[in-house]
């Protein structure tokens, strides 16, 4: 209908891209300019991709105003494995501390695990035992309704993923529904203050109408951004029905930028990180398992992710999206984060990083391939 033109312009601040006819005309006009096409051999890449775009050095005052004020707390609780009552253990471990649990009384709480894809021999997804602990926590804190929700990033076959990852079984065992965010009804949210350049996002109603969204990620290295944890996990709140499998537009518009926009749109209330069996190397899918034996919790997701980076002996300032989050989401400076429980220094251990973490040329090549 008449909507097309308006929608095209609304979707990006940059406006519409050229179509086939435009290109043929354009090519004829500029042919002869002389240039090299070296590096343009990727078979699925986009030559104008912004996947590796830099983060902005300056933000607007209104963007900076969104940053959380005051100190943040992050709890680090040793959990040796996935056996037993993990939530009871965490609760007992933190009982004598000043750790502030979020107020979930009477609220509709959405727990968002990581169920991006499945590999039988790799810790790709949030462990079902950790998800059950998160459900138990929400129920114990008085949540009126608990929903588990995820929009898997790579596979359309959600029924399969729920089965093989054990996350569907965890939901059934705990008596809570699972919502496939990829196919949920969607609502349009304004993103005028966002960093991606997208004027708005379409997000699932389950997320939009939740009183509290809790990120329940798996701690892994990540070949695009160094590390994936509670903030990156929110990519799974973006609906595939609009953005696809994967949610490629979030990459095209800049992963750090998209991560930050989603923090401000989803407004997560807490993170509970599965740091028991983690992933190092070529994460987030092809890496190898590494036992850390910790669960990391907090209400400031920037602080949680910065703390997890430090556990991996990474500098938060060197991970673009965490650096950006420190400017407009929450605290990433050590001095502003109160660690409760296990001291970072006692568990910090170097992780094998994806080769793209140090080799930026490879990162650009991979970006060309759209992987």
């Amino acid at each position, binding site marked *: 209908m008449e909507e097309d033109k308006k929608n095209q312009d609304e979707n990006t601040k940059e406006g519409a891209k050229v179509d086939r006819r435009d290109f043929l005309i354009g090519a004829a006009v500029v042919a002869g300019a002389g240039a090299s096409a070296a590096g343009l051999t990727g078979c*699925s890449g986009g030559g104008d991709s912004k996947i590796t775009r830099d983060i902005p050095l300056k933000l607007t005052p209104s963007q900076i105003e969104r940053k959380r004020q005051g100190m943040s707390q992050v709890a680090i609780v040793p959990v040796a494995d996935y056996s037993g009552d993990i939530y009871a253990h965490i609760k007992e471990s933190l009982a004598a501390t000043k750790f502030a649990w979020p107020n979930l009384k009477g609220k509709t709480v959405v727990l968002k695990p990581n169920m991006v894809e499945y590999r039988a021999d790799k810790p790709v997804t949030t462990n079902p035992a950790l998800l059950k602990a998160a459900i138990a926590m929400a129920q114990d804190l008085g949540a009126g309704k608990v929903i588990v929700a995820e929009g898997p990033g790579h*596979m359309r076959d959600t029924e399969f993923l729920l089965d093989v990852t054990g996350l*569907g079984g965890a939901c059934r065992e705990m008596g809570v529904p699972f919502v496939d965010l990829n*196919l949920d009804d969607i609502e349009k949210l304004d993103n005028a203050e966002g960093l991606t350049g997208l004027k708005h996002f379409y997000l699932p109603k389950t997320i939009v109408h939740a009183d509290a969204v809790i990120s329940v990620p798996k701690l892994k290295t990540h070949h695009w951004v160094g590390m994936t944890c509670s903030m990156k996990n929110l990519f799974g709140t973006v609906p595939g029905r609009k953005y696809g499998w994967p949610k490629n537009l979030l990459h095209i518009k800049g992963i750090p930028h998209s991560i930050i926009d989603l923090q401000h749109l989803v407004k997560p209330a807490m993170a509970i990180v599965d740091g028991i069996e983690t992933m190092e190397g070529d994460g987030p899918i092809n890496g190898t398992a590494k036992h850390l034996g910790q669960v990391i919790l907090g209400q400031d997701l920037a602080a949680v992710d910065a703390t997890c980076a430090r556990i991996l002996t990474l500098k938060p300032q060197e991970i673009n999206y965490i650096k950006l989050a420190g400017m407009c989401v929450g605290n990433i400076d050590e001095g502003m984060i109160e660690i409760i429980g296990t001291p970072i220094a006692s568990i910090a251990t170097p992780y094998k990083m994806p080769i793209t973490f140090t080799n930026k040329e490879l990162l650009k090549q991979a970006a060309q391939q759209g992987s």
Partner: protein
Amino acid sequence: MDQLSITRDKARAYLKKVQRTDGFFPYKASGDPSTEATAWAAIALCKDGEPAPVDALRALANSQGTKGGWATRQDTGRPDWTSGPATLALRVAMPRLKPVLASEQKLDTSSRRGLDYLLESRTDFYGPTARLLLFLTKGRSGLDYSRGWPWDPECFHWIEPTAYCLMAAKIPNQPKKGALGEMIELAERFILDHHCIDGGWNHGNNITLGAYLPSYRLTTAEALLALQNRRDEKKVDQAVHYLSKQSQSDTSAHALAMSILALAAYQKSHATNFDLELQQLMARQKDDGSFGHDSSVLVTALALLALETALDTDDQLLVMK
């Protein structure tokens, strides 16, 4: 009545029950309209005649954008990958409903405009500068790189949207040569270029940063449906073999339905594993007649189509003529 017919009738009844009064189908009962669910439900029900599939096709035609494409739901931004399934529905279902729709020129026009949209929308792949560089360094052949379709117009091309759009362009009939034929050839090559080492396809690349990536059952089935005229290709044969090997795994209604549809398109319906997959699929039907997580309308439509392959072996809706 045999079990297959009972299962099929229950699925059909479920779909009709959840159709919205505006003609659209939602992804799940009582949900908002979904272009994709409406498209597959229209195909699955088209042999029934009116009103369900007719209302669905009219709803699709009425929600088509000015450029001929569709968004996942009307008023949700620019056209996207759902233009593939919507065009496919119009092309496949309309001929079955000719007696009812004979006087409705709008649907014919809508189908043609859908194909035009697919033709015009596919080159946002390399930007103009990159394409110019390719042209300057490699000549005209530099622009003949394999390419398919993206999920969103600004993004990379991926296997699934390419498969959906290829199906729309080729089923029921492959177009004559020309721009559309050229587009189809490049898109087929795009899928073939991304063939995984274990035989099938996943959502995207077959190799990333030196690591070979595994196939998915569902995506392999979708790609095979899109490549059914290329069965002489070695990679296609390997993919059929990969898919057949999965038959012992009762993984999900969605994958089973697509697998059955793909195997039927490759005339594997006589195989024992095909019957096994049918049994597995039927066993996954819920009491309300639906299939899939949360009584998925999309998966129920695909399951109904899959069940039809066992009943009407000479009249397969997703097999190229």
